């Protein structure tokens, strides 16, 4: 024994004392579903791609984004971004400008010429996609990436569907649309234009297809019965917007009345202003708060001088010197909020009347296909798989029961593609279990710096009514990065090192960049400081069981 006087034990480290045995609750790292992702109709992992954008790695962000949606530049312009309405940051100051960053990534991808990775292996299966709109192209993209051969048949002369023939250029410049469509085709998708499928059963048999995805859209304008003199010039919104793409702009005159309250009505009125109409008046039978059109678009239309006659319907279209005299009846909302006639009339003179009363689907191609069920003018599908009643035939976009917009359509295409793939393999798809929601109450917002949002520049009002130039500008790299960094990363670790720092017991192991952290349960006493001080709520405390 060579120890000093009165010393009987050799010095030891406290590491011998496994304080983990004190614990009654243990911290566990979790990933939760941020509200933006939960809300996205296209199923984008928004928090996931913002994570890369925050670091300035825009290509990684774009690749992450396009795992779910091949059209970020289109989305960044036309999506109604419900994600921003759901954003937890909105309860702190203002929501993150997700849509603006998405557009920046999309534009950056076009500018730098980023391409999609080709499929890893060919499956030898051949899928027919009917309709080259957002839903059909989205399905084609996802099917192709899964290795299937894809033929897209489009009745029209150009690809894009309603992205081209419904959304005006001032919202979606055509070079942007062309670039993103072409990138999908470059994956090896076969596109046949002017190739209407009149009989699906026959087309399937002749083409030797293993499955089909239908997304023909809703292109038939709904009419309303309005007694009219022959001289009255009455058009429908679908054909007005479509003819904007044909080189020969529609003749609307100086005084244009648009009948309807949806986004299409707004699009037509704003288009009319740009075509030189001095008066563009929307006639809508309810009030602004009940208008189905998105409020931001109503606001922009009003800024551009579009006028709206609320609580009004058109009863008849008669003759007037040099135009049409519309008889307008004032309406009043009843207790249930439905418009009721008042018997009060007035006359509105116009050079043309454009009906924007909704659109129907041409379902004639489905004749002779058994098992299909159509209801309310749309095809019924299993909402979980997008498959119709006919095995192997799937459908999406405007022709199935759902909200009608580009983002929903893209989401349908993605979902259908996954289920077509599963159906072709004969295996039920195994969707990853959805994470629990990352609610605002789980955040420790102390750690987030105060940061007001960045606004996108808008085109001068004068040019907005005289040209079809894009109204909404994009972000520069500086403010896109700023905006991306406003993301709170709700429910997903962003490696802020807080847990590693605040543990009084050194029981958090830092695994290095991108690897996140691990709890050392030998020493973790279960105090819960890491969970309490995690800014984004990515740590749960769970009871220990014997």
């Amino acid at each position, binding site marked *: 024994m060579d120890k000093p006087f009165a010393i009987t*034990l*050799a*010095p*030891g*480290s*406290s*590491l*011998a*004392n*496994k*304080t983990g045995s*004190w614990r009654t609750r243990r911290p566990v790292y979790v990933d939760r579903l941020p509200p933006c992702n939960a809300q996205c109709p296209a199923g984008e992992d928004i928090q996931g791609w913002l994570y890369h954008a*925050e*670091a300035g790695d825009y290509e990684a962000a774009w690749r992450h984004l396009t795992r779910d949606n091949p059209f970020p530049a289109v989305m960044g312009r036309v999506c109604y971004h419900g994600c921003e309405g759901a954003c937890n940051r909105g309860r702190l100051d203002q929501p993150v400008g997700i849509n603006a960053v998405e557009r920046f990534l999309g534009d950056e991808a076009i500018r730098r010429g980023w391409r999609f990775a080709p499929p890893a292996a060919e499956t030898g299966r051949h899928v027919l996609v009917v309709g080259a709109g957002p839903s059909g192209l989205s399905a084609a993209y996802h099917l192709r990436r899964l290795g299937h051969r894809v033929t897209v048949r489009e009745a029209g002369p150009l690809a894009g569907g309603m992205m081209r023939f419904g959304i005006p250029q001032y919202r979606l410049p055509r070079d942007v649309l062309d670039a993103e469509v072409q990138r999908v085709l470059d994956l090896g998708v076969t596109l046949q234009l002017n190739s209407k499928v009149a009989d699906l059963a026959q087309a399937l048999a002749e083409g030797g297809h293993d499955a089909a995805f239908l997304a023909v859209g809703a292109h038939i304008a709904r009419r309303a019965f309005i007694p009219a003199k022959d001289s009255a010039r009455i058009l429908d919104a679908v054909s007005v917007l479509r003819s904007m793409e044909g080189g020969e702009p529609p003749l609307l005159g100086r005084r244009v009345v648009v009948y309807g309250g949806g986004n299409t009505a707004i699009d037509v009125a704003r288009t009319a202003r740009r075509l030189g109409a001095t008066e563009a008046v929307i006639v809508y039978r309810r009030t602004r708060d009940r208008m189905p059109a998105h409020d931001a678009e109503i606001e922009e239309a009003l800024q551009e001088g579009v006028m709206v006659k609320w609580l009004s319907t058109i009863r008849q279209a008669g003759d007037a010197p040099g135009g049409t005299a519309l008889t307008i009846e004032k309406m009043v909302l009843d207790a249930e909020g439905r418009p009721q006639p008042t018997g009060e009339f007035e006359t509105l003179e116009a050079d043309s009347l454009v009906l924007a009363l909704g659109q129907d689907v041409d379902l004639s191609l489905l004749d002779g296909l058994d098992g299909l069920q159509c209801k309310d003018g749309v095809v019924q599908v299993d909402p979980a798989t997008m498959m119709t009643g006919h095995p192997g035939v799937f459908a999406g976009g405007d022709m199935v029961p759902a909200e009608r917009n580009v983002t929903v359509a893209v989401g349908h295409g993605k979902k259908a593609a996954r289920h077509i793939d599963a159906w072709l393999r004969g295996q039920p798809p195994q969707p990853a279990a959805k994470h629990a929601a990352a609610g605002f109450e789980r955040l420790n917002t*102390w*750690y*987030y*710096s105060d*940061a007001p949002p*960045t606004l996108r520049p808008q085109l001068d009002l004068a040019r907005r009514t005289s040209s079809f130039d894009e109204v909404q500008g994009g972000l*520069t790299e*500086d*403010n896109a*990065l*700023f905006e991306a*960094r*406003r993301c*709170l990363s709700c429910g997903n670790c*962003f*490696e*802020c*090192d*807080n847990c*590693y*720092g*605040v*543990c*009084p*017991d*050194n*029981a958090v192991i*830092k695994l*290095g*960049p*991108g690897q996140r952290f691990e709890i*050392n349960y*030998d*020493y973790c*006493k*279960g*105090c*819960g*400081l890491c*969970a*309490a*001080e995690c*800014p984004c709520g990515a740590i749960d*405390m769970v009871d220990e069981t014997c």
Partner: protein
Amino acid sequence: MTQPLKFYQTGTFTVGNRLLAPELRSVQASAERSNALNSGHRACQGCGEALGARYVVDAAMRATRGQLIAANATGCLEVFSTPYPETSWQLPWIHSLFGNAAAVGTGIAAALKVQARKAGRAAPEVRVIAQGGDGGTTDIGFGCLSGMFERNDDVLYVCYDNEAYMNTGVQRSSATPPAARTATTMAVGEAPGAAFGQGKNLPLIAMAHEIPYVATATVADLRDLEAKVERAMALRGARYLHVLVPCPLGWGAASHDTIRLARLARETGLFPEFEAEHGQVTAVTRIRRRLPVEDYLRPQKRFAHLFGPDGDPDTLARIQARADRNIARFGLLEAPGS
């Protein structure tokens, strides 16, 4: 846009961040930190003192490139870190008595000075810290500490203030705040809890010695704390750092609320964070989002008697007045540059 990119990832609030340049990250964010107070120590769950001690000593270790010796007063920190024959300390560490940590630090510093002189160096390379709780500092060790200050010995003294004698069963110290319940100031009678108008403010007493550096900090603001340790280690002579470390046991608070309470102490104005050099305040850490003292007091059982069925608005108002006085005295709300 020329707005600086300073957000949650790169801002000053979290411990570290993947987006920060390594040299801008905190010591605690580094996988190579010293872990001066290692795992296996026997502090309670959520111990603020264990956390504060690691924050301070790791930062001092980086500032001195590991050339550091610590003297420790008796108290929780000493007891939970060194039950014979184990130690959690990963630096040379000595414990002598309850009240003499400052004197032991002085002695080590003197020995190092002699060694340096014999080796022909102007100043010793190895630096010294002395540390203790509020009992060992403001009460029992006060004489030794004052002596260390007036001699301007080259020691950084760190007081981990949890506002009572927690190790022996939560008895009142001269750092216990008014109205707080302890084993010796029970929540009974006319004026329950610790009395108003007693106790001492050691940071201000240290300032009165006009020593080179005095600072206060909490475990809630790591970057602020590390900057103060770094500043202290860049100076020679007697320096004093007073760190507020919530005690879940003694304060009757949840173990996961340790940092939150420290943050609330600052945001309510009850614990002013400042730096002073040679007796003059040189900087204060401003309140980010001012809160009423009730937010800080309510989660602590030691103040539970203020929130009984009838409440105690008078006492709350007196505590709020203390916070307001701090805010006015140190300018805790003024915008920088004003």
